[in-house]
């Protein structure tokens, strides 16, 4: 049976991982390539690189780092951040990305999802959505969660998967950073609406949060997190062993 995936996410700026990461109290690692290798060794099933640079020059640096990572790390690599056109898809795919995650770019130009899916296949296009409850309704937020688009989230996700998004990352703004667990209600609503894989993001604070996620919502395919892995609060190895103990399929 296919395993549930555990996915660390790295923010990359100016060729470095933002703030650097203290790996289990050892030394600080700022090189995205080194960190990616470390996560791969520790059992990450997939990696997300998020490009938070702005200028074209920095973007070229990011692309170089991507190439170096793909030359050294042999697990699937998803790239997000600054993906606005088919040319952006092309650039990161040629540099070693396996999947491309699109968020604000799809909100600005909803045709992007369909165009990219036709060119590169559905499995390549990951829709990432930042969602927040507003008066009890799930709304899509843009610009890193700062701007309410007014769009109803489930409808937006249905539309994009209908056009070819092959996977959905659900990032709950309501639970993000709170570290009290994933947003099970929101994730359930998405899982009931789509047939493509759903990746949970936002809210994980400890191993138990992942166990609760996969036990409560068997339709969720993967759990994504950043800081709890980066700062050693959760070790991927321990997490996966606990998953297996709980009867959740995991790659060890």
């Amino acid at each position: 049976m296919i395993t549930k995936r555990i996915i660390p996410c790295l923010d990359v700026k100016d060729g470095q991982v933002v703030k650097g990461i203290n790996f289990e109290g050892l030394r600080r690692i700022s090189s995205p390539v080194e960190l990616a290798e470390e996560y791969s060794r520790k059992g990450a099933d997939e990696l997300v690189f998020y490009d938070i640079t702005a200028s074209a020059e920095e973007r070229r640096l990011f692309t170089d780092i991507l190439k170096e990572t793909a030359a050294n790390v042999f697990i699937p690599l998803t790239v997000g951040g600054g993906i606005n056109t088919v040319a952006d898809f092309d650039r990161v795919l040629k540099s070693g990305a396996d999947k491309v995650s699109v968020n604000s770019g799809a909100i600005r130009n909803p045709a992007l999802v369909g165009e990219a899916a036709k060119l590169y296949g559905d499995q390549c296009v990951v829709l990432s959505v930042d969602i927040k409850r507003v008066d009890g309704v799930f709304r899509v937020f843009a610009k890193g969660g700062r701007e309410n688009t007014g769009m109803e989230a489930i409808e937006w996700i249905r539309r994009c998967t209908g056009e070819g998004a092959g996977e959905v990352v659900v990032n709950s703004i309501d639970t993000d950073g709170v570290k009290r667990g994933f947003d099970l209600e929101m994730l359930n609503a998405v899982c009931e609406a789509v047939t493509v894989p759903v990746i949970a993001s936002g809210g994980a604070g400890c191993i138990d949060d992942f166990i609760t996620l996969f036990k409560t919502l068997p339709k969720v395919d993967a759990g994504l997190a950043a800081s709890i892995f980066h700062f050693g609060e959760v070790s991927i190895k321990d997490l996966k062993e606990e998953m297996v103990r709980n009867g959740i399929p995991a790659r060890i």
Partner: protein
Amino acid sequence: MITIIDYGVGNLFSLTCSFKAVGADVTISSDPEDIKKADKLILPGVGAFRDAALKLRTSGLDELIKEETAKGKLLMGVCLGMQMLFDRSLEYGEHEGLGLIPGIIRPLSGQIPDKLKIPHMGWNALDIKKPHPIFKYLGEREYVYFVHSFSACDCDENIIATSEYGAPITAAVAKGNVCGCQFHPEKSGDTGLKILKAFCELKEGDLC
């Protein structure tokens, strides 16, 4: 030398890097001379079967691959490249493959329970059905990475490994000097690299 056959299908960057990582002398080429000179061939591929088969045919590389493998040259197909080794595919119509391994590519829907998602995407365990040199460094039930919506059927005697996804799905096949992986060895971590290393160490004649 290993030549990855470039027929304009998919991205060969990761595949090339993974062979380099196991120390192989690897080139990417569509030049018939490089394909003739190589002692091993890799047939890659992602995307739609029809487009890939058409590109292989219009480039004339289909005949060259058949000639070279008929002489005993080692060939490994990866993902769609593995599917291309078969007689035909029922992916959106019916399309002819290379016919190097008997069998048909069929949609996963119909083979697996409806509640399971398609594509079959993610890490799944290999159930080795027959010992094969490409598995020589593997332990039991190691995990490999899959992304596919179609799979090889009616090829029982050439299946060397399956993966369980509601039903046993063809994961790797071999017939004489030709073999193939439905999964992506270049994205399957150390397990994938061990398979590629074992393939690189094969010598012509090992698999006759």
